[in-house]
């Protein structure tokens, strides 16, 4: 059966629930990347993100009736499952940051765009990016997911509110707090090497 590329997610899900593998594959390909990026940015680990994506879509295979189209789009439902899995993953993990998903690791995460900048410039850029990543990963969960959705995924406040199942005002205030926290953390992270060097 030929499937229209614009077919709605809930229609595809119904077909998938009846055993239409093509519908399921299309549904997966349409939604996997955003869920993977969310999980990757939340956990900082490519293997964890892979596991989370698999869990999310496995839930869709096993319990498609859990999705209620009247409560929101399928993407929000998938984000909801992913958030739960991320929380479980973070509860299991020791409190440390992983810089695993920087360029080249596992060949999955970053696409490097070559330009004419010098190696020193690149090194500085990487260092700054690592600092920002570490600062994001050190945020409390509710602030971290707000930053990931609004700043990294560039969702609107309304979209983020749908995913996070909270009012738009809450998203706004969390983002405001997150920025203040990030500034403080970055200050701390960037000054740490200087303080360490000053000690010698």
């Amino acid at each position, binding site marked *: 059966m030929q499937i229209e590329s614009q077919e709605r997610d809930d229609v595809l899900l119904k077909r*998938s629930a009846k*055993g239409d*593998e093509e519908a*399921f*594959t299309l549904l*997966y*390909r349409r939604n*996997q*990347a955003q*869920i*993977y*990026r969310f999980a*990757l*940015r939340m956990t900082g680990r490519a293997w964890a*993100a*892979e596991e989370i*994506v*698999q869990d999310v*879509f*496995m839930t869709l*295979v*096993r319990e498609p009736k859990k999705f209620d189209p009247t409560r929101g789009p399928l993407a929000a439902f998938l984000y909801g499952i992913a958030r739960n899995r991320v929380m479980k993953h973070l509860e299991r993990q020791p409190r440390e940051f992983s810089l695993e*998903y920087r*360029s080249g690791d596992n060949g*999955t*995460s*970053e*696409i490097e765009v070559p330009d004419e900048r010098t190696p020193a410039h690149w090194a500085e850029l990487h260092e*700054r*990016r690592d600092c*920002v*990543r570490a600062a*994001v990963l050190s945020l409390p969960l509710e602030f971290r997911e707000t*930053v990931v959705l609004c*700043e*990294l*995924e*560039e969702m609107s406040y309304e979209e983020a509110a749908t995913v996070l199942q909270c009012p738009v005002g809450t998203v*706004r*205030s969390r*983002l*405001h707090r997150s*920025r*203040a926290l*990030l*500034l403080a953390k*970055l200050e701390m992270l960037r000054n740490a090497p200087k303080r360490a060097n000053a000690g010698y």
Partner: protein
Amino acid sequence: MNCEEFVNSGLASAAAAEPETAAAREHLRTCPECAALYERLLELRGELRELGKATTQAATPSRVEMRLRQEFRTRHKTDKNRDRAVVAGWMLAATTMVLAAGSMVVWQQRQGNHMNPTPAPVSVSAVANGPELGGTLIAASDDEQFALIPGALPGLQDETSVVRVQMQRGALGALGLSVNDEQASDIVQVDLLLDTDGQPQAYRLAESTD
């Protein structure tokens, strides 16, 4: 606008390159600390955007799709098998019910036959007086007609047997029949209809051997 107000309102609306309100912009010009904070915030937003772009192309490895599709196939194959098993189960149950109902009907019919028997193998005629047995007993002209022996139940069972015996007419008295004493010594052939217990239920006179 003071610094606290600027932090509360200005940072929240830091999406633009400049604060949205005139009061915030005015505060920025007059307060170097808030201006520095604002600069750092814009820098942070730029860095976050860079970080976002760095992972924009990130996607799940293809092995996950393969695993999921395999799971999908397995699951739906199992579901189909389960559906078939359910259908087969229901069909079996329905067949059993039909058989049970059929058996019940047959059983009830048999019960009814026992209550109101019809003499299938032979027919029994009423006792009538006749000249051959001294005006007391007479066999029906039809060979298959039997007369009930007094005291025998009118119902005949399905499984009966006919036995031909030769006896003195007087011996019929033992079966409860009245016999003319003058002919008691005559030898007669009698067909006896026996039930499953071997008890005579009816008789007919085959022929007289006199």
